[in-house]
């Protein structure tokens, strides 16, 4: 996957470049808005990581310009502004996700990977399957090994989100944002408890666990050895 990082702080930009390389991705860096926009226009990038405050041209303007030109490359906006309104402005400008500084690299990586494999809008998946676990998005039915599993509505959405991003790390914040639509950080790790409940429903009694905890990062649904 090729990522373009538009970030004016050189040290941060280089840190991201190195880290993304270590994670097996290619990353280019632009340190000002104009260069960033030019590179985003002719490079074939899978994801753009755009800082909001940049010299010469600010991040939101880059995203707006690209969207006006019809580019649909997923954009993750990085910002030091964390207000609810700031997030809304960022997403309204055409950003696909919004991450507030300071962030953990694992969080950034999980979000970049989630964005990169976002299915095209016309592609509607109605059924997810991981191993012997299936989830039907139309009938809201879940079963494992042919056995139906009864889930609460929220548990269904939680599993749906995890399965949509199967094989990729999903962080607690991503779950809070996408399953609960909360953009704050609850004091207690509420997500862990919800996951353990879900796990007891889908993994308990089966030989091979599907829902894995990724230390220091989040969770992942995956069919394969631990």
């Amino acid at each position: 996957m090729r990522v373009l990082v538009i970030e004016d702080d050189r040290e941060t930009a280089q840190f991201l470049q190195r880290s993304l390389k270590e994670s097996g991705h290619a990353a280019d860096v632009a340190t000002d808005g104009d260069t960033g926009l030019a590179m985003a226009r002719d490079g074939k990038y899978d994801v753009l990581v755009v800082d909001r405050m940049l010299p010469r041209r600010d991040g939101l303007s880059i995203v707006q310009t690209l969207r006006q030109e019809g580019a649909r490359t997923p954009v993750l906006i990085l910002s030091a502004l964390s207000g609810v309104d700031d997030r809304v402005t960022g997403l309204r400008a055409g950003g696909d996700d919004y991450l507030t500084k300071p962030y953990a690299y694992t969080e950034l990586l999980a979000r970049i990977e989630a964005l990169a494999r976002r299915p095209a809008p016309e592609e509607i998946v109605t059924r997810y399957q991981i191993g012997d676990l299936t989830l039907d998005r139309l009938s809201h039915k879940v079963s494992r090994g042919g056995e139906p599993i009864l889930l609460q509505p929220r548990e269904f959405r939680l599993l749906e989100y995890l399965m949509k991003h199967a094989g990729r790390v999903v962080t607690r914040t991503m779950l809070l944002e996408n399953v609960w639509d909360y953009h704050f950080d609850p004091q207690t790790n509420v997500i862990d408890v919800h996951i353990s409940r879900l796990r007891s429903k889908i993994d308990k009694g089966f030989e091979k666990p599907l829902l894995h905890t990724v230390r220091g990062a989040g969770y992942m649904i995956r069919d394969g050895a631990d």
Partner: protein
Amino acid sequence: MTALTRLIASSPFRLSLAYLGAFVLVAALVLGFIGWRANELLTTQVIETLSAEVTGLREQFQVGGAARLRDIVADRSQEPGGGLYLLTDSTGRKLAGNLPRAPFQLEDGRGGVFRYRRTSDVPQRKDRIAVGVPLAVPGGYTLIVGRDIEDQQQFADTLWKVALWGIGLLALVGIGAGLLISRTVLGRIEGITAAVRTIMAGDLSSRIPVAGMDDELDRLSASLNDMLSRIEELMGALREVSNNIAHDLRTPLNRLRNNAEEALRNPDDVATYRAALAKTIEEADELIRTFNSLLLIARLEGRAIAESLTQVDVSAIVADVAELYEPVAEEAGLALATKVPDGVMITANRELVSQAVANLVDNAIKYSADAPALGEAAPERKVTIEVIPSGALVDIVVADEGPGVPAEDRQRALQRFVRLEQSRSAPGSGLGLSLVAAVARLHGGSIRLEDNHPGLRAILTLPSEPFARVAEPTTSSALTLSPAAERAAAIASG
């Protein structure tokens, strides 16, 4: 002198001067017009009377000729009153009458005003004024019939003088009153200016004097005072934030630095390094969390997001939070019960209200989970979440059956960073309740803590229309934590 020049240059004085000028001008115009008209009218009347007399005399002449006319004129000249007569022949010689000679003003043969000196025995010091009509009598005679209007004229003159004096006096009194009013108003405005200068010099607690007259100046002062209170409040909040940052971020920052330093001092042992780095990240995360909460509270108190309020379903918000925490409560051995009526709508920020309710529920679970058991016979401990709409307000009540908070500590519990002694060991930044208080204030609501017998009952009250409250900001209940009270408590607690 400078005081007087300042007074004269003041806008109230200039205004009253302009007002006075306009008044005097109009009064003079009206009076002048009335005077002129009255004079006209009187003169016309006199001339009409004279014309009638002249007609009578002409008839006498036709009957009795010049001799008879002369007799009548001589007769009438002797009568007391204002009648004036003069009969002359073609050479201009006086035949009869009480006028010494024909006044030149009447030489053109038309009636009008003239001046004369009476030929009576009383010596006249000055000319008197009269109205006369000349009449050419056949045979070259000229008859002048007139009326003395000196008295009328003097009356008119007196009237004029009175009017002038009156206007003069009026102007004088007006200027005086203007000066007086200006001095009063100016005095009050100067008072406001002086107070504002004191405040600008740094004494933010000083206030503008209110005269207690409930006029527009008082209202202006009151509004300025309200503004000052708000500014002081914001400044206080800002100062508090910086103090808190200093206090509560420096210590963990220092800890973080110590860890790194210690790891560096040790001989190269990869395991130690790794442990130190992991701890550093952990501490940094904790710092970020605290910092974010602080920033959010500061933003809320600055009302920076007041515009992002929309119609939200508070029932759904509370139900969602309950659902989020239900497994946590269960794991902690607590029952989470909800009493939430459907579809209670308020104008609020969904995210912030969710976060506030989440903090309350989080606290309720955290503090009642590790409380000692209620006893063998007692049922499972409960955390209850209720939504109670009452008129224009909605109460969101989160009650637990934990150890509660002693009455004297309740106010303090709502302050930033205050974590009560017995809960020092529990995790959290200590900002949970202050955030709830800030959210409540932003929405024009309140948060209060009560005894749940046993446990704590936190009541978050939100108005359904947050900006309908602007009218009565001073009538909040005693239990409501006002920012000023909070600050006072903060100062009191050191």
